[in-house]
């Protein structure tokens, strides 16, 4: 009874926390979810089963620039009294600022070994959101266009969004080719639920320093798809209204499987000798074909507006008649702006978008049976941008059940990511907690504040049932137990 209550308590605790396909978890060799980043990784179990709906809930946030303490100033009792736009704009990266979030949770997952193959199955929901923007996107409205005067100094705000919500059904196979070489493949069937992706969303603004004449251009091309019916409209004031009709979705729930896609994870591990090894993997190499409620949002300077030879809209002031008209009837002004800067939303039939892929290259060095040093390079390709990171980690196993990992990760504009992972392998279940950035939670006031102020925050906690440690592990444990009996 106590064991059951304890199990429930831990499950509830686990459910309340967030987890991620994090780097630190990958180095914890006793963890059944360690192979998520490399399907060729040899698992030291004969099988596992996850808690349905709650064994592996993952969430992470990467926020390189828009941090709470950077944006807001508080008084003594914590009330926000100041918005610090200057500080926010000045610390932005010129080219790439990211606000990414990834959430996934397993509905069903399990695995079992049939020599020499370890099969795994998982059905999970994934939300992958990637947004990146450059400095000009915020610097221009905050500091004004006079910070960008001259022919060689235009403002070029840029925004890239790639968001996917989808169901993933994966069937993994890890194969021991021989005692040195392991390969893994994990084909996945995908069913898209929602997608927003920009091909481009950018603008250019030149300002003449003498007479403030503006030359501007903008280009928007974004695709939106959803299984929940929605409509996008514009009212007479130009305000965009988006409304969803979830009841219609419930009537046609089969639409949840209408947007079909496929992806594959590939991995390879090579044990050079008992001490050294290398590994590599490619993840989420795939696409989804979106067919449900697809819309394309486009915008560019209207062809009927005044343009220069480069196709930029030129604004050097309104005529006196227009000025009088706008002052008398401000709606005329908003109509004119909409005419020059139209945003069109058109239904499209279907489109195909690729997933944000990532690749990892790893090398490790075993220091005895219980300790391993690893170095891993990871790269993500998102919105035509390359996001690298480099991690070094130490993993140690103690007393046959305690798994400890300490890692250090360098990422773009973030060099203080100290990771920590702890796992307890207690007979039939495995309880673990890990994070790639301990400092993301350290804050004298609260953990939430720590998360809001950190470059990246993720926690991985989970509960999974496993069985059948491999022969090697069992012999080792038996040897140690015999030694303890003798010493007692």
């Amino acid at each position, binding site marked *: 009874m106590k064991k059951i209550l304890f199990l429930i308590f831990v499950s509830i605790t686990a459910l309340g926390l967030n987890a991620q396909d994090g780097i630190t978890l990958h180095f914890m060799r006793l963890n059944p979810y360690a192979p998520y980043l490399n399907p060729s990784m040899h698992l030291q179990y004969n099988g596992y089963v996850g808690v349905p709906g709650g064994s592996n809930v993952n969430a992470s946030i990467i926020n390189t620039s828009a941090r709470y303490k950077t944006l807001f100033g508080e008084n003594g009792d914590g009330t926000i009294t100041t918005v610090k736009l200057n500080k926010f704009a000045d610390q932005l990266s010129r080219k790439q600022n990211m606000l990414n979030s990834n959430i996934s949770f397993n509905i069903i997952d399990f695995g079992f070994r049939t020599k020499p193959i370890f099969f795994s199955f998982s059905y999970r929901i994934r939300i992958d959101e990637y947004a990146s923007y450059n400095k000009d996107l915020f610097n221009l409205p905050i500091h004004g266009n006079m910070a960008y005067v001259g022919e060689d100094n235009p403002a070029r705000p840029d925004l890239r969004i790639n968001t996917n919500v989808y169901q993933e059904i994966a069937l993994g196979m890890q194969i021991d080719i021989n005692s040195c070489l392991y390969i893994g493949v994990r084909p996945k069937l995908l069913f898209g639920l929602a997608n927003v992706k920009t091909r481009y969303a950018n603008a250019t603004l030149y300002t003449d320093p003498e007479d403030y004449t503006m030359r501007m251009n903008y280009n928007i091309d974004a695709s939106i798809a959803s299984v929940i019916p929605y409509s996008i409209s514009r009212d007479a004031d130009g305000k965009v209204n988006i409304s969803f009709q979830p009841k219609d979705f419930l009537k046609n729930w089969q639409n949840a499987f209408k947007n079909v896609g496929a992806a594959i994870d590939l991995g390879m591990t090579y044990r050079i000798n008992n001490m050294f090894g290398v590994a590599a993997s490619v993840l989420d190499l795939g696409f989804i074909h979106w067919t449900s409620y697809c819309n394309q949002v486009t915008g560019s300077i209207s062809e009927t507006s005044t343009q220069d030879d480069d196709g930029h809209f030129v604004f050097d002031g309104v005529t006196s008649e227009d000025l009088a008209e706008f002052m008398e009837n401000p709606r005329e002004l908003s109509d004119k702006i909409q005419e020059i800067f139209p945003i069109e939303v058109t239904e499209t039939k279907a489109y195909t978008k690729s997933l944000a892929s990532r690749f990892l290259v790893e090398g490790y060095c075993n220091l005895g049976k219980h300790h391993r040093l690893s170095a891993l390079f990871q790269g993500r390709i998102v919105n035509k941008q390359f996001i690298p990171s480099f991690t070094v980690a130490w993993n140690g196993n103690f007393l046959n059940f305690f798994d400890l990992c300490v890692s250090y990760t360098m990422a773009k504009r973030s060099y203080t990511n100290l990771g920590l992972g702890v796992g307890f392998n207690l007979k039939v279940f495995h309880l673990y907690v890990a994070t790639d950035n301990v400092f993301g939670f350290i804050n004298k*006031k609260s953990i939430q504040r720590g998360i809001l102020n950190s470059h990246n925050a993720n926690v991985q906690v989970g509960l999974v049932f496993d069985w059948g440690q491999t022969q090697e592990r069992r012999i080792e444990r038996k040897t140690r137990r015999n030694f303890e009996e003798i010493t007692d």
Partner: protein
Amino acid sequence: MNKYRIFLSSLLIIIMFSTSSCHDKLFDFNIDNIDADGNWGIPILNGTIGIDQLLNNTDSMHYVQTDENGVFKLVFEGDAENLVHMSNIFNIDNRTFDTTGVYMIDELPTFHIDQVLPFNLSTEDVILKEAVIKSGIMTLYFNITSANFAYTATLTSQNITDANGTPLSMTFSNTQHQQTLNLSNYTVQPDFTGIIYLSANITVNTTSQVNQITYECHNQFTNCALHSITGQLRAIEIPINSAFGFSLPLNNFHFNNISFNNAKLSLSEKNSLCAINGTINEFTLFGNQPPVAPLITNPITINLPLSPNQYTQAAEVNLLPIHINQNLDSIRMNCNFIVNPDGFAAGDIYVDENSSLSLRVKTEFPTNLSIDNAVYRDTIDNDLHKTFNFGTIQSIDLLTLRFAITNLFPFDLTPSIDFLNSQTGEIFHVNLNNMHIHGAYNNTPIESAPAYIDFNHDDAKKILNSDKVILTFRIDTNGNDVEINNTQNVRIALGAKISYSQISL
């Protein structure tokens, strides 16, 4: 195993407490300040303003036309209708004709008297041949005064007929001496001598011997209006004084002198009376302090032949150069017309109640002019406080307005802007840095150097506290004679630069 459980439980408790948050206020907003340094430059206005657009804001647009070369001209046109009409020539005034007579009776009981009451309606100016009466009353009295016997007397006239041509016939008796006749649509046609005769057929009823009678007859015409007359007219001189008003809204203008050259007068006439000659003795511009300027030096003789259906040009005269230094409100004309200048020798003339002489006077002032120190001043309401209050703009550290003007008008402009608080009398004068825009006297656009005008918080307060804006422009042609045409304009480029460093909410 117990040790493991204790250790595990402790670790889980640590995890639980470390993953639960202390009470921390996050996203509790009460923002009163935004730290944002910004500098925005915005072009506001870039347009051309021509004379027609300037005048569109006044009521004077209908006075402005362009000639075939696009040169603007001020055109004042007015009609003086019914300057001369039939009543100026002939009227049947209220008058009475009396007679008493003695008649020697030659036959009884009925006898006839010719020419009981001859009378003449003609005047020294008009020998009447026929008059058709529109309305009027004729009161006729007849009485035999010499005896008391009964009688009937029927008075007739072949010279007075009704609408059907029936001659006048009225019956009197010893008991009825007076009768009244409505003369509407009656025609009066005197004989070739101009005389209208009344004759009488009298029947007496008496057994006495009557050899002669004495009678009395009165004929009174009252309130007669005429449809038409036919007759011979003497040449009649009629003096006319007429004024053609206009309201140029030049109240905002004050000027030493504006000189107009090459002004022109056109006279057109619509004449359904008869041939008329005229002399225009005076043609003068009038303003607040009359007179302003005579437009002719010598009288102008004009002929006004018959032109009953439309205006036809009668005269076109070049006017003197005009120098004005005040507001204008009318053109006044003093002239003498001679109706039917050939007089009786012209023969019979027919005029009716609709016949008249109307004149159309058109005066053109081409904008071939010179301007000496004219000032245009307009006071308009300052409604800025309806859109902005100081709270919305106090975050702005500095507002700089940039003016750049390209002038194609052939006159110099010196602008001035003042904001007036009419309650306190405080005036805020906007420093335009002595902006002066030179005139384009050679048809070459003159670009002025951009002027930058700074406004800080104090300036903004004064502007928002004022209720009037006084715009003043000094205009001068620097002694040049210039033409204003429709290719000229002024291009104004207005931009604003706004600087802020902290936005208070």
